[in-house]
């Protein structure tokens, strides 16, 4: 809603400084977004009469005019067409400024000293105009006054009037969508009285009355129809057109402009019919399913059953509160009108306007709830202005419908004290509500009864009254206290649950491991699956789609963190980064047969290059398969799952290098994967080199987590170390060998560590050297050399039994650790 300040001041006294007004209104919930000054800078313009106008010699277009403005007279050269003696036009004498601040001076034109300029509508930033000078004859000044030569135009036409731009919330949208509504708020805020707006009485019903039959009083409780005769062709007065323009509406045609003006002023949308084209009585009814109507915008529209329409004998002539019909449209030569000022139900109008995609100033007001008591005053105001502008007179009024009874709401003062604080008793409630137009009466012990003013359809129950009291009293004046039992220094409780712990560990370890955190979008493009080389039947493709995405690249809810990770690497590669390492802890969305998708939280890690650029200390660790796997292993260890997490070569990971991809398993559950990228993926995502990435299901990990419950006793007796070196086929997984050795080692094995893998030239073809370090230890004694030798021998014996493994000479440094 845009509120020209001059218009507002007609109804209520406002502070001189619009900023003060804006702040006070905002403080009451009527948010003023901005104070605009569209005509800022304009000054010194006056109305002037052209006494004589002669073509200027040697020019084709220019006229030399003698003008008179009060006691001033001057010669002005003018280039506008149609200049003639007797016209009353705007004159910007030397020293004046046009809107925007352009200064006017004496100008030498073809040997004539032109004393300023005569102005068109456009030059004054006013609507309308036809290229010629602005005609100031008629009721052109604010309030329909007539101008005389010498009159100050800046004041008379409100050329520098500021405009308040309101950003209304849905609950105040209804009653503040008019000058009157805002004036009521101003009056309440500053404890002022509204200025009256005297309008003539509407004529009574009579011979000219048009019958109105309301078939659906629920949807139309009130319908005022006024017959108006004798409209003459006219132009919309400058002041009225300017106010429409300042409110953001385009002036169109005098009758329509008046209707719009009254709507802006009083909040009541009006409609005018060309009465010569109406056939018979007005019926307010629900449309039939197969009905159609040609609307004002020249479009044939299908009505839906239940749409509220205004119809005559021949069918619908308007979609109630939404748009008029073309058949009865008021045109330039229309002389007899039927003016409609009715109250239509908010839901019905909003629904129809939405379905037809026809938002309008009228449907916006009805749709938010108009004032049912505004029908008659608005009609009377329109009649008054139509008389002024077109010379028409109202002949008869039909006032149909039961109306809307006022709403009574009880208010418990104890409730107000609870919700708003002690001290807000009956007196405060009564005073604040009355300031907002409610009538308030006592209704027994601790109870008041408020009668809601007709323009506050949004106030429906006790809590709405509480809010009205609060905002009228002032939020800033309400007390401030912590809730009982709360303090600023309470110790926060621990984050709840195993998942929170696992997620926190995942973040901590990833950060400590050198990975930076990202928060990519939860959605991606279907084509991203192709960029991961996924076949058509890959399970990741079973993604939930967004029905109304903002673009194809946001169509699917992610089923894997891989897309966001790779996209981030792509972004960084584009910056020519040689190294990147990122992670995310976040949900994926797993389709579950049409029901709500599951949202398991995962850790996703990815990078390329090294953990950081090389420096003079040397290169940092590479971001490779081992880096990802190691991070997952560390997390598993943190969650007590070190001995439970197992790894297998991964199949079904098409984005991966087939030889550098593994699945992580917890018991019988695949919980994640780690890999380096397939060469095609490197190309598709334009990465500078192979990237490594992986994903781990934190919910599965959290479910299996074994938090530390009791520490192991520290060993009190020294351990012995023995190493075993062997030659094994290169494809033989070391995890298998470790398992075999662990089993053979028995209970005295404290630690088993693979400390060397050699696949170089000295190893026989297809084989590699592996070296394991065994730590032997007993909790209750120092092991003798013989006992250690026995353990060592048991492992060696088992290894010797494996056909594809060969032991390399015993290494026994005999050291104690």
């Amino acid at each position, binding site marked *: 809603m845009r509120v020209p300040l001059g218009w507002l001041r007609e109804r209520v006294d406002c502070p001189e400084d619009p900023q003060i007004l804006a702040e006070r209104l905002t403080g009451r919930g009527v948010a003023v977004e901005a104070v605009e000054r569209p005509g800022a800078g304009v000054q010194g313009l006056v109305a002037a009469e052209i006494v004589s106008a002669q073509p200027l010699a040697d020019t084709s277009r220019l006229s030399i005019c003698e003008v008179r403005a009060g006691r001033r007279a001057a010669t002005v050269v003018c280039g506008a067409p149609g200049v003639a003696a007797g016209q009353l036009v705007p004159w910007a004498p030397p020293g004046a400024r046009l809107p925007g601040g352009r200064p006017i001076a004496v100008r030498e034109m073809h040997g004539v000293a032109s004393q300023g300029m005569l102005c068109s509508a456009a030059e004054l930033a006013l609507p309308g105009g036809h290229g010629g000078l602005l005609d100031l004859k008629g009721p052109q000044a604010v309030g329909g006054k007539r101008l005389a030569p010498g009159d100050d135009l800046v004041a008379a036409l409100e050329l520098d009037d500021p405009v308040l731009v309101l950003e209304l919330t849905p609950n105040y949208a209804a009653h503040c969508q008019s000058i009157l509504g805002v004036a009521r708020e101003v009056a309440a805020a500053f404890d002022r009285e509204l200025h009256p707006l005297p309008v003539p009485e509407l004529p009574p019903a009579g011979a000219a009355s048009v019958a109105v039959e309301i078939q659906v009083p629920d949807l139309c409780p009130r319908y005022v129809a006024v017959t108006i005769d004798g409209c003459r062709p006219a132009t919309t007065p400058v002041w009225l057109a300017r106010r429409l323009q300042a409110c953001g509406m385009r002036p169109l045609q005098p009758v329509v402009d008046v209707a719009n003006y009254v709507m802006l002023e009083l909040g009541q949308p009006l409609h005018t019919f060309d009465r010569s084209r109406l056939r018979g009585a007005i019926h307010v009814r629900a449309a039939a399913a197969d009905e159609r109507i040609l609307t004002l915008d020249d479009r044939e529209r299908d009505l839906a059953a239940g749409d509220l329409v205004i119809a005559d004998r021949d069918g619908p002539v308007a979609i109630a509160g939404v748009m008029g019909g073309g058949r009865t449209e008021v045109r330039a030569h229309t002389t007899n009108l039927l003016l409609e000022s009715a109250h239509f139900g908010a839901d019905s109008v909003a629904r129809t306007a939405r379905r037809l995609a026809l938002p309008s100033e009228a449907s916006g007001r009805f749709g938010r709830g108009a004032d049912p008591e505004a029908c008659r005053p608005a009609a009377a105001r329109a009649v008054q202005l139509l008389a002024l502008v077109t010379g028409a007179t109202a002949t008869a009024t039909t006032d149909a419908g039961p109306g809307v009874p006022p709403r009574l709401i009880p208010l418990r003062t104890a409730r107000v004290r609870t919700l708003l604080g002690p001290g807000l008793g009956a007196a405060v409630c009564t005073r604040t509500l009355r300031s907002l137009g409610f009538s308030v009466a006592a209704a027994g012990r601790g109870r008041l009864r408020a009668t809601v003013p007709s323009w506050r359809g949004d106030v429906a129950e006790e*809590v709405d009254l509480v809010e009205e009291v609060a905002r009228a009293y002032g939020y800033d004046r309400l007390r401030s206290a912590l809730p009982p039992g709360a303090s600023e220094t309470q110790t926060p409780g621990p984050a709840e649950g195993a998942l929170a712990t696992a997620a926190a560990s995942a973040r901590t370890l990833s950060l400590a491991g050198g990975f930076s955190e990202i928060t990519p979008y939860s959605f991606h493009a279907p084509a991203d699956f192709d960029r991961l080389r996924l076949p058509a039947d890959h399970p990741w493709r079973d993604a939930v789609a967004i029905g109304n995405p903002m673009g194809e690249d946001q169509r699917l809810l992610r089923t894997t963190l891989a897309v966001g990770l790779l996209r981030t690497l792509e972004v960084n590669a584009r910056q020519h980064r040689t190294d990147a390492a990122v992670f995310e802890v976040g949900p994926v969305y797993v389709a579950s047969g049409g029901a709500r998708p599951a*949202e398991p939280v995962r850790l996703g890690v990815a990078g390329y290059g090294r953990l950081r650029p090389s420096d003079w200390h040397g290169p940092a660790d590479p971001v490779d398969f081992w880096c990802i796997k190691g991070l997952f292993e560390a997390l598993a260890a943190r969650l007590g799952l070190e001995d439970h997490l197992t790894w297998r070569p991964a199949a079904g990971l098409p984005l991966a290098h087939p030889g550098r991809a593994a699945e992580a398993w917890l018991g019988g559950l695949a919980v994640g994967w780690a890999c380096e990228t397939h060469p095609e993926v490197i190309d598709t995502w334009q990465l500078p080199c192979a990237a490594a990435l992986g994903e781990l299901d934190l919910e599965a990990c959290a479910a299996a987590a074994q938090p530390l419950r009791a520490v192991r006793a520290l060993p009190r007796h020294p351990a012995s170390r023995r190493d075993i070196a062997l030659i094994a086929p290169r494809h033989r997984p070391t995890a298998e060998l470790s398992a075999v050795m662990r089993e053979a080692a028995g209970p005295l094995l404290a630690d088993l560590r693979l400390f060397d893998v050699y696949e170089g030239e000295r190893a026989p073809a297809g084989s590699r050297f592996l070296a394991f370090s065994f730590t032997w230890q007993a909790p209750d004694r120092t092991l003798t050399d013989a006992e250690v030798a026995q353990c060592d021998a048991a492992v060696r014996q088992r290894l010797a039994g494996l056909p594809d493994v060969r032991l390399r000479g015993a290494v026994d440094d005999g050291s104690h650790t």
Partner: protein
Amino acid sequence: MDTPREGPWEALVAEALERIAAADQPDDLESARVHYLGRSGLLTQALRDVGRLPAQQRPAAGQLGNAARDRVSTALEARRAALAAGVLERRLAAEAVDVTLPGRRPVLGHAHPLRQLRAEIEDVLGRLGFATVEGPEVESEWYNFEALNIPADHPARAMHDSFYLDLPPGPEGRWLLRTHTSPVQMRHLQAMRGRLPVRMQAPGRVYRRDDDATHSPMFHQIEGLAVDRDLGMPHLKGTLAAFARQMWGPAARIRLRPSYFPFTEPSAEVDVSCVFCGGGGCRTCKDSGWIEILGAGLVHPRVLSAGGYDPEAVSGFAFGIGLERVAMLRYRIPDMRLLYEGDLRLLQQF
């Protein structure tokens, strides 16, 4: 043998001290020690000779001799220490490094600003007694709208331009990506089954169809909810004032402006005194001295009812904070999209 005199001892000591002082290598010092104090060293010999003196002369001579030997061995020890110190000094000098070279830093990742902020707010609210609760991002229309007093025809639904999913509707209506964290209020109220007091915070991702420099289709909120007997606007103000002090320092003040949310009434937009100018007016606060930071209000009775609480018996307040807005203000991030892109040039600044 003559009567013992000081003379010969003095000469011997003087000679020895001179030689000790001249020794500048540990080897020279060692040969000096052997020369004077070794088994057949000069001083050792002379002391041995004392034994041959007449008995009455022996004590005095012995005293002089012992004193001479002590002086020499003390000098030897001192010189040895000095030489050792010199060696150490040279070694340390040789081992010196250019301390202006860059250190070897641990390779650490950078926590995302939104996560850092979320942790900070979670901690502050946690201290005020609000326990963290999470809820699903895919929500039904009932939880996202109806239960929060936003019926199908309500104009507020236009404020939430939502992402609906291609899934068959369930008994609670269509599925959508939640447009705010408020549905968690409802889920938590239901889970609490009427117990008091309720004090929860719900951080998480939310989604709206909006995409420009200050809007993103995905963003983050933290929701706070308190329900108990006799809670009202003063408690909302007190809690938010405490929150503002903890977040932005003891001088931070709050201002409430009436506003509208379907799930609270009365509702308020809450401003915090501008952290950049302290309220005096600057570019960031558009010269108002205030920055709009969150929305809040008293829980609407219908929301309490939907959550299984009797609005006649209990009341409460709720508030919601947009994390992105706070992060962008705090770090002067010009474009919200930078927060999701993952450009490490930005992330590594945190």
